């Protein structure tokens, strides 16, 4: 844990600014339409910044850099496909969806297919996706505040929950749009400037990729590792260590190699324990004072402070599969190479992220805030520019981290590389300032994503569940109160769950959210907009089956992490394991096939489909538009 006053200052500053901006923006939020879609009057530039601000979550700000540091080249697919999803959104969804003039995705489902039951199915999926997206954000909030300031895990969650709930309940979509666009600017600054300065700083010692090329990563400074009983070290080459107290360690010859990892279950990179120790072949080593750890896998059998001198090979903890730099740099390295079929894994990963982005309800709802379809397209294009400017930088942090602070592998702190690396610039004002800046950026990352999720969840409760399902007769004021209550309840629930899940690796839940979105809402939107013969039955079965199978296969993967018979079975059928952990490559085609097949076999398109196609596709200038819900 590195606690520094500068980082605390950055966090507090960002919390105050976010809270202040949220309170300031309250004055603009009056009507229900303000709360749900910002009165549809957000200009493209502000809206694009708000969308980017909302989209760049903790996974983007902290996660990608950590994953690149752990797994290398294969992780580049994440940022590229996160951004690439927006191109597909621009091509197929942005314009028509805005013209349709709904408030939420369930509105689209009901409006396009005239089926209230379809709305309920869609609302259920919106709530599932929203919550599983919100939990990792809460966990990131707790961990970041803990890492940066030394405060307990729950404190970070509490602070973030208060800031976010106050902003969303007070200002709704209108207020939060302003705050999120501000937070995007903070994040872009906080990732690009420190990365750029670090690049300049290290360029004196050569190109980052040249260091340790092909061989072992060596520690760049003498490091103290705090180890606990049962902790695992993968030792890539004989390491000379000094222990504070005499200690016994278990040792296995079985050398950790690149790609020896468990099936890469975690979409966001959360992998299970990398090497499992077979205790029957365990040797015991006694360490006292200075000793040697031979190449292999070491299990510590006591609490100790272990000092490893500069220039020794860096040990790998349990979270990262040990790899040589050569393997790390290449395609199909530690991430994809450890799976049954690397090519299959890579393609499934690409598909899941690209298509999942398009189906995320809290992102889509933002496109309704544009005045018209033209503005909606321009917004999406500007988002591409902004995301491109951001996503160049996280891999830079990852690559620099591998070369210049490999002690993070042994500490299992790769996820915090963005927060920790700036301290390499020294304890002077520059290092301190950069630490404060990245801490502020991280805070902006999880608060803006959580804000967007709460607007989406509040909208689902206030508009879809309460206003359309439970009490269709409710007036605008009652629906606004329901929105606020829904957002408040969701915020409190996500915070409470975030406290509970602190011990678990829950990053897989974001993967779940993406996979469900890709196999349910993505086909629904694409076919609903572009294919007039899609029937209600076909669409509903496709959504239920695609989303359902994706859910089941990911649950199976989660069970496999605690059940050894299932894990052994999946170990033998590695292609099946790949598909179960990355189901999009199968479930997306299934959903499409269902929708198209059933629609062709039982052709009964919903009534007035021509009028709906006019609404979706008639150019703005014809002036035929009407809002789905006149507020």
């Amino acid at each position, binding site marked *: 844990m590195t606690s520094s006053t500068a980082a605390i200052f950055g966090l507090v500053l960002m919390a105050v600014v976010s809270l202040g901006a949220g309170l300031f923006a309250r004055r603009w939020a009056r009507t229900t339409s303000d709360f749900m879609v910002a009165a549809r009057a957000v200009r493209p530039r502000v809206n694009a910044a708000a969308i980017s601000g909302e989209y760049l979550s903790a996974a983007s700000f902290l996660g990608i850099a950590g994953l690149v540091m752990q797994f290398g080249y294969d992780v580049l697919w994440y940022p590229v496909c996160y951004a690439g999803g927006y191109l597909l959104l621009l091509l197929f969804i942005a314009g028509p969806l805005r013209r349709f003039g709904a408030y939420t995705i369930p509105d689209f489902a009901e409006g396009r297919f005239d089926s209230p039951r379809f709305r309920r199915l869609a609302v259920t999926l919106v709530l599932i996706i929203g919550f599983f997206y919100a939990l990792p954000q809460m966990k990131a909030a707790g961990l970041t505040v803990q890492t940066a300031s030394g405060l307990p895990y729950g404190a970070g969650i509490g602070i973030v929950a208060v800031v976010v709930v106050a902003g969303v309940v007070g200002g709704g979509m209108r207020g939060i749009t302003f705050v999120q666009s501000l937070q995007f600017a903070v994040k872009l600054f906080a990732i690009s400037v420190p990365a750029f300065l670090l690049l300049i700083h290290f360029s004196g010692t050569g190109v980052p990729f040249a260091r340790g090329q092909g061989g072992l990563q060596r520690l760049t400074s003498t490091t103290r590792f705090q180890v606990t009983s049962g902790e695992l070290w993968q030792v890539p080459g004989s390491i000379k260590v000094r222990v504070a107290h005499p200690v016994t360690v278990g040792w296995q010859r079985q050398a950790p190699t690149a790609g020896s990892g468990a099936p890469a279950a975690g979409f966001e990179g959360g992998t299970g324990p990398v090497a499992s120790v077979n205790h029957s072949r365990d040797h015991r080593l006694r360490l006292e004072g200075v000793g040697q750890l031979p190449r292999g896998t070491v299990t510590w059998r006591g609490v100790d402070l272990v000092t490893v001198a500069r220039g020794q090979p860096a040990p790998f903890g349990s979270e990262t599969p040990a790899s040589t730099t050569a393997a790390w740099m290449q395609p199909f390295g530690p991430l994809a190479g450890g799976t049954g079929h690397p090519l299959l894994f890579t393609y499934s990963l690409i598909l899941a992220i*690209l298509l999942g982005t398009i189906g995320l309800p809290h992102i889509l709802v933002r496109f309704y805030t544009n005045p018209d379809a*033209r503005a909606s397209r321009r917004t999406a294009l500007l988002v591409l520019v902004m995301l491109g400017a951001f996503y160049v930088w996280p891999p830079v942090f990852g690559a620099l981290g591998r070369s210049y602070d490999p002690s993070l592998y042994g500490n299992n702190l790769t996820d915090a590389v963005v927060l920790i690396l700036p301290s390499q610039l020294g304890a002077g004002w520059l290092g301190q300032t950069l630490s404060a800046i990245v801490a502020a950026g991280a805070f902006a990352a999880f608060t803006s994503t959580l804000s967007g999720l709460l607007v989406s969840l509040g909208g689902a409760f206030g508009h879809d569940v309460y206003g359309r399902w439970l009490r269709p007769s409710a007036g605008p004021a009652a629906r606004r109160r329901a929105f606020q209550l829904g957002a408040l309840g969701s915020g409190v629930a996500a915070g409470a769950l975030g406290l509970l899940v602190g011990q678990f690796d829950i990053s897989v839940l974001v993967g779940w959210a993406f996979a469900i979105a890709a196999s349910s809402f993505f086909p629904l939107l694409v076919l609903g907009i572009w294919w007039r013969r899609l029937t209600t039955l076909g669409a509903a079965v496709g959504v239920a089956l695609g989303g359902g199978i994706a859910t089941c296969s990911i649950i199976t993967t989660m069970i496999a992490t605690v059940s050894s018979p299932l894990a052994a079975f999946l170990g033998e059928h590695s292609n099946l394991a790949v598909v179960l952990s990355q189901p999009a490559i199968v479930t997306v085609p299934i959903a499409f096939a269902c929708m198209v097949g059933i629609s062709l076999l039982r052709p009964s398109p919903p009534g007035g489909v021509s009028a709906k196609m*006019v609404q979706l596709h008639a150019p703005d200038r014809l002036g035929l538009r009407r809002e789905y819900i006149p507020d």
Partner: protein
Amino acid sequence: MSANLTGALQSEADPPPSTGLLEFEEQTEVGELYLKALVRRQRRLSLGVAAVFATFLLVQPLLAWWWPGWSRLRLVGIPVDWLVLGLGSYPLLIWLGSIYVRRAEEVDDEFTDLLR
């Protein structure tokens, strides 16, 4: 339905709708044909742009799979495959996006002029 759709949002200064616009609004068979033609053009444009990006993405893993030399290329010490994917993707995305926005607006405008 058509009463709802008629131009509540049209300003007073707009000229009276032409027959083409009327056909379109009333969803007659001729209007239907207009609409189908518009949707087809927009769909072809979107699919075309998407195909370019998909090719860019999907070719890279194959390239690395069949030709290991691809991942050994270096440019000033930095692997070329990192540069192409991690840096080159974004200008391509922005370029494709701007081409699409321009073309999609042209298609919309041509269609509007046709009906007016």
